[in-house]
């Protein structure tokens, strides 16, 4: 092949034919150099595309998600009139309970009317439409407050209510007067009213703690939805993963690395582990559904089941990294221990394992971070499709009661039709990535600090 190409080249002609100077490039050299430059440019372009994509992704997440951490609040002075809330007049909690949330709605309307009168705001809106800029959860919030402290009845108290999702979107430029043309939930007049309230400072956008600590909410109330409960679900799953995957993974690695004889059984186990690491995550979800829920009758949607499934997924990661760090401990350590009379088991548990611990820890954290972001298997064991509204009150209920998890909650929001939930989903991603970045940083720091070169 080389001969064939050489036959076409100019300098394969008889000697002395080559003209020109070494100082000037001939056409062929120029062509080759250009090809060289082009090839290098392809590489630069490829890397730039990769970086650009990362940049676009990060920019997207931040620009769309930070809005979820801010929320619009409306400040109102509500007169908790006794004749509406306590007709009997004895402040008996059982009588107070009889007034439903509907009974509290008029209070809000009156509060708006008073506000309009006080500040001379000119508006054609009915008081019902004015109250429409509040979240539908406002009367319930009022009712819960009154039921918890009945003594406030009769007083006028300053409340901060969540504005409805549309109003919140208006302040965040997501909702415009054009986009609500066919929207039944809000009218341009209401937005004008919001502008007027904004001027006198009774509508305000500020940091929203509820998004981080709160629970999910129903489709109609995107403004009240939060990540808190699903974060607890993720926490309990990670506890299960840590409690099971770490000891089992370390035990398996110790056996494979230190004790296992070289035979076909060991080979099968090793091939098995490397293949398990590449099995699609959804297959683990099917396994969880078939074995843990259908066969063992563990409760649906429980973080315990999610944790078990994620344990099986994380095991290969932990085993692979643990084996690597066991392998990195030099044989002289083992020999020295054996030489002073330790048994094989003692040399491993008293000397090799402590030296390998930082590496094992790093691998475990990275495995946990992977498990934290995994979504697909959770869909199959039912951790989506419902509203995770109550934070668990004990460890047992945290493990066994239906809950969501961070990525499942994000998926849930992404599927809802109201764009206000998309903002929540991006915001949820910021929180999720925050956890992942923290975990990976800890892993990197651990590796840098404790890694030993022998």
């Amino acid at each position: 092949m080389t001969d064939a190409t050489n036959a076409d080249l100019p300098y394969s002609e008889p000697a002395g034919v080559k003209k020109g100077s070494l100082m000037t490039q001939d056409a062929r050299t120029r062509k080759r150099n250009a090809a060289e430059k082009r090839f290098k440019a392809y590489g630069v372009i490829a890397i730039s595309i990769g970086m650009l994509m990362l940049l676009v992704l990060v920019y997207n997440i931040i620009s769309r998600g930070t809005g979820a951490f801010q929320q619009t609040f409306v400040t109102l002075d509500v007169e908790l009139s006794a004749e509406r809330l306590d007709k009997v007049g004895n402040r008996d909690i059982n009588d107070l309970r009889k007034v439903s949330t509907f009974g509290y709605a008029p209070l809000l309307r009156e509060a708006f009317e008073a506000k309009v009168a006080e500040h001379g705001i000119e508006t054609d809106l009915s008081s019902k439409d004015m109250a429409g800029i509040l979240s539908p959860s406002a009367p319930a919030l009022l009712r819960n407050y009154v039921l918890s402290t009945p003594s406030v009845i009769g007083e006028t108290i300053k409340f901060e209510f969540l504005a409805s999702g549309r109003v919140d979107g208006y302040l965040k430029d997501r909702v415009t007067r054009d986009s609500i043309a066919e929207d039944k939930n809000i009218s341009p007049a209401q937005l004008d009213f919001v502008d007027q309230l904004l001027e006198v400072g009774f509508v305000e956008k500020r940091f929203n703690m509820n998004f981080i600590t709160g629970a999910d909410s129903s489709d109609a109330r995107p403004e009240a939805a939060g990540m808190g409960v699903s974060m607890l679900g993720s926490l309990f799953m990670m506890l299960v993963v840590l409690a099971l995957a770490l000891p089992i993974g370390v035990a398996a690695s110790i056996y494979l690395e230190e004790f296992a004889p070289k035979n076909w059984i060991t080979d099968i186990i090793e091939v098995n582990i490397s293949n398990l690491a590449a099995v699609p995550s959804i297959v683990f979800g099917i396994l969880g559904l078939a074995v843990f829920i259908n066969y063992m009758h563990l409760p649906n949607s429980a973080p315990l089941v999610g944790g078990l499934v994620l344990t099986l997924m994380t095991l290969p990661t932990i085993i692979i990294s643990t084996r690597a760090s066991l392998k990195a401990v030099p044989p002289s350590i083992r020999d020295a221990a054996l030489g002073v009379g330790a048994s094989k088991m003692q040399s491993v548990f008293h000397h090799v394992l402590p030296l390998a611990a930082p590496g094992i820890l790093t691998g475990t954290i990275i495995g946990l971070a992977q498990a934290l972001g995994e979504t697909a298997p959770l869909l199959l064991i039912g951790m989506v499709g419902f509203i995770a509204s109550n934070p668990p009150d004990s460890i047992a209920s945290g493990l066994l009661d239906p809950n969501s998890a961070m990525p499942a909650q994000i998926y849930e929001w992404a599927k809802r039709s109201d764009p206000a939930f998309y903002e929540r989903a991006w915001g949820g991603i910021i929180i999720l990535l925050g956890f992942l970045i923290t975990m990976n940083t800890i892993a990197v720091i651990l590796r840098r600090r404790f890694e030993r070169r022998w």
Partner: protein
Amino acid sequence: MALGVTGYVILAVLALTVVAFIAAKARAKSAAGGDVRLLHSLPNYYGYNAAMFTAVPALGVLVIWLMAQPMLIENAIFDRLPDHLIEDGFSRNLMMSDVRRVAEGLDVAVSAGAMTEERADRIRTEFSDVRSILGSVGVALGSDVRPEVLSAAQQYRKSSAIGMGWMTGVVLILAALGAFVSVFVSGADFRARNVVERFVLSMLIVAASLAILTTVGIVLSMLFESLNFFRMHPWTDFFFGGQWAPNFRGNSDLSILPLLWGTLYISIVALMVAIPIGLFAAIYLSEYAGPKVRAFAKPLLEILAGIPTIVYGLFALLTVGPFLVSIFGRGEAGLLGVDWMSGATAVLTAGLVMGIMLIPFVSSLSDDIINAVPQAMRDGSLGLGSTKSETIRQVVLPAALPGIVGAVLLAASRAIGETMIVVLGAGAIAKFSLNPLEAMTTITTRIVSQLTGDTDFASPETLVAFALGLTLFVLTLGLNVLALYIVRRYREQYE
């Protein structure tokens, strides 16, 4: 009552374990007359040995008992249920879960004080409204309790109580026996360390075999349900039919071919994005980039692999999809003034985003492989006067080709098994089409949609998900094994 019988039994066994540990250690020490050097093993090993013999058999029996007892009782009760109940269209599982619910309800009622123990055993649907009594303590039953179910539930409770009694006895006796024997043998000549170490070793082996157990579990769980599926649905339709149209009233067309087409099409688009970018990035990083650029660019690229797939899914659905629509869709208002794309979900949407996700897979694997090509080969080529790019194209890449093929196969297996990106970005329409701007669906998407929500494990529309899962498993496993084989063979070549 908060702990339940099982909790108290476990606590008792643990207490006994601690006692055995202390007793055995003390006995060994006293057998040596206070001089620890006369013992065969360190004193703690005698303690561990005793603790092990006390706890392990007792807790093992406890676990097995707890798993076996409900099954045995259910079988016994099921045999006694009148046949007409089951023929009424009640499946066995539904029936038994009814019985379990009522039995649990009775337990709750007794512990909440709504009923006495005696009344729970004798209550009859003919005389009192069991459903409302249970409802009053917070146990909601779907329908009225049938007399047969109630009596079966009472039978269930009675048998469970007897079983629990026996279990408590057996477990405690076993623990006491273990403690007694192990403390008794703890003399100076007893080789406690060897026994303990043998036990630890067997635990290590059990942990290592869990990997195999998982694989077996995956295969068996999917195989059984798949067999159930093929009993209800002709396998010829599944493998060779041309339609995917599940219909929950029955008589559905469930063929994998349109799904497989969607899966492969999206994967091909993804690989067409990932292979050139990933490969050129790897070549640049390993051949051209200086150590500083490398230390900066490589980890940044690898961040793309660490981002959870749900993030990419959202990116596809809410960013890339609408962006593509603004180019290819919307008619006059769009960038190209055409109306080829109707919705954000499409093959191209999912494929592009999946391609981005796969870039680091291709690049870091190829990077490793290119680095493994011996330097002597490059030096030889450069010494003959070829430029760097000529060396790479004609020497390095051919030498690394098998490894790169392996890397691409691994990326392909990732693409086929990827779920979240396609669930959010690819759409739900199963069809054979070559248009990348149309929505299509994949195997993983259909698994998710058939198995979420209310599922009935007796209908082929649900069970087909297991057959799909098995196919997916076999497909990705095949690709992985092939890839690992190629990579491994290639590595040996240069070592």
